[in-house]
């Protein structure tokens, strides 16, 4: 119910009424809690964000653009876009398939599958990166076999893609499972009974009914794919101009004491985050509204039942 749960966390409308309810704290405590939360948000979230942009523009627009147009930085930006362009569609397909089978079928080991989907969330990204090194690295299980065939995965783009796909795997599936479970399979069965093939049923019925959830998952998946550091850092090998993604580039520039350039690249990632949050909010609002509309079954009452005419 990811999208819908947020409904309940909204303050109720009559909370502003003067009378104090039994469950409400005294005004002092209330304001104390609010100010703690606000201060925390300000110091730990808002200030650093503003600082990123302030630092990025410390040398003005010209400095900013110059930092970004550096060939190595450009290559990092391109690589990041490439990795996202590969891993997001892959995870859309995986996510749809996984959510579909979890939401629509009952089978043995379903809880295990759900747990497995969450695995990337619970494993440290560094460990995830190491897993791939152990699998595909020269000292790894498949490394020698791959080496003979001149296929390089670790310290190359394929490794970065693999690590990113692994890390971002849960996002789409996690968003879709509750939406699909809520819709049930009645509409699909109706489409089948009307003669639609499995594919047409999916295209005309399933996909439209999960579109907001899917988009939401894609947005989150994309944000993480572009921002992933830990796992990618292990498998990429940090080859400047070749296997550096944007987060890795930020780190490298910073360690080279090129703070302004580091922050310029970082500002792009921060901007991506802001745009993501914006779209996410709009999508949540859309989804909520659609859900509310569906719940709001108060159209005109049945005043007539037709006598069929012939």
């Amino acid at each position, binding site marked *: 119910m990811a999208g819908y749960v947020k409904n309940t966390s909204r303050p109720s409308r009559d909370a502003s009424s003067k009378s104090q309810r039994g469950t409400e704290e005294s005004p002092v405590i209330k304001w104390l809690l609010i100010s703690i939360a606000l201060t925390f948000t300000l110091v730990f979230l808002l200030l650093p964000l503003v600082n990123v942009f302030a630092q990025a523009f410390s040398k003005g627009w010209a400095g900013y653009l110059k930092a970004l147009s550096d060939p190595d930085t450009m290559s990092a930006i391109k690589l990041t876009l490439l990795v996202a362009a590969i891993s997001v569609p892959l995870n859309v397909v995986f996510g749809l398939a996984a959510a579909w089978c979890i939401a629509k079928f009952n089978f043995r080991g379903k809880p295990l599958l759900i747990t497995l989907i969450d695995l990337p969330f619970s494993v440290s990204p560094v460990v995830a990166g190491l897993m791939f090194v152990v699998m595909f690295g020269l000292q790894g299980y498949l490394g020698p076999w791959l080496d003979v065939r001149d296929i390089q995965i670790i310290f190359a783009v394929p490794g970065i893609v693999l690590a990113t796909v692994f890390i971002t795997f849960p996002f789409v599936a996690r968003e879709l499972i509750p939406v699909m479970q809520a819709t*049930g399979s009645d*509409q699909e*069965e*109706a489409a089948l*009974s009307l003669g639609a093939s499995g594919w047409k049923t999916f295209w*005309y019925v399933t996909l439209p009914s999960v579109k907001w959830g899917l988009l939401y998952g894609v947005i989150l998946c994309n944000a993480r794919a572009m921002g992933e550091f830990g796992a990618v850092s292990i498998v990429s090998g940090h080859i400047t101009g070749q296997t550096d993604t944007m987060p890795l580039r930020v780190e490298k520039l910073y360690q080279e004491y090129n703070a302004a350039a580091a922050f310029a690249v970082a500002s792009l990632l921060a901007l991506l985050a802001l745009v993501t949050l914006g779209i996410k909010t709009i999508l949540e609002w859309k989804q909520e509204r659609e859900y509310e509309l569906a719940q709001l079954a108060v159209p005109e*009452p*049945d005043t007539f039942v*037709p006598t069929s005419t*012939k």
Partner: protein
Amino acid sequence: MSIELRNVSKKFGGVAAVNNVNFSVKEGELVALLGPSGGGKTTVLRMISGLEMPTGGDIFIRGERMNDISVQKRNIGFVFQSYALFKNMTVFKNIAFGLKIKKWKKTDIHDRVHELLHLLGLDGLDKRYPHQLSGGQRQRVAIARALASKPSVLLLDEPFGAVDAKIRQELRDWLVTLHTDLNVTTLFVTHDQEEAMEVSNRIVIFSKGNLEQIGTPREVYEEPANEFVARFIGVLNVLELTVQGGVARYGELEFPALDRSDGSKMRIGFRPFAVQISPDTSAYRCRAMLRHTFFLGVMLRLELELPSGLTIRSRMTKEEYSALGLKEGQEVSFIIKRYRILRGESEPLSPEIHSGDTAFSTFGAGI
């Protein structure tokens, strides 16, 4: 035969949901599949539609064996209990869906959809979305959608389950009218015996995956095949008698023991109408207290409390009631005019036994 089931069974992971069911439906019939929930009736409906595959037996639609034919190719119309309208499509698109899949021409689709909208009293609602419709309207859209491509059978799963009582009644009448007009073979699932009695030409009664009886509403009411059917269709009073001295007794009530040995138990069942009441406490041998009277319009339901504390139900018209001058809390005498011997849930019932109508002779006459 429009639909025929031969020895159809369905198991869900070792649990039998439907056991060796055989029945057939004639072209143009309106048949109810009736039974308590979990009785297997919805599974039977889904197997006919092809949404569920039988684990044994054969299903025929218009003489053609359907077992290996997918739901898409069976040309059935299925109306889901939840209606299952496509919520992202307008009413028009919902109804047109099957026609579009079957590649009808655009103009033909338009004409057919508007014909159905008119037939179902949905004129002017074609641009609405399902969430903008009332419950009854949604159901009619679901029926229109199922009827669009002229199916050979119309299957409805609990069609009146999700609407309120008043509309329910109207929808029942309307379904009968629609069926008369279209004359399409129709099967519907219900757990409401009244609904089944009122709407259908024939009723198929299921319990625990077994077909208990198939017959017209009158047949299943008047000649129930077994105790389950007798209890499920209408009200059945049940008494457990003990045989003593060659007579089966329940308090002052006495019945012929039919050669049963002393001390054995015997159960009988009788309809409320079989109970005849008199305000004269000496008119009949058995006495009871008239505990409650319920007014159900023309008919009244009476509850008699026997000296043992057991309550039995009776029915009479308002006129009879006032003619007898009965009052709640009054001492009355009564007689059971017709009854059947019960031999267990799915055992066949005995034929109806008529007790003598005269006082003091509750047994002997007319067996």
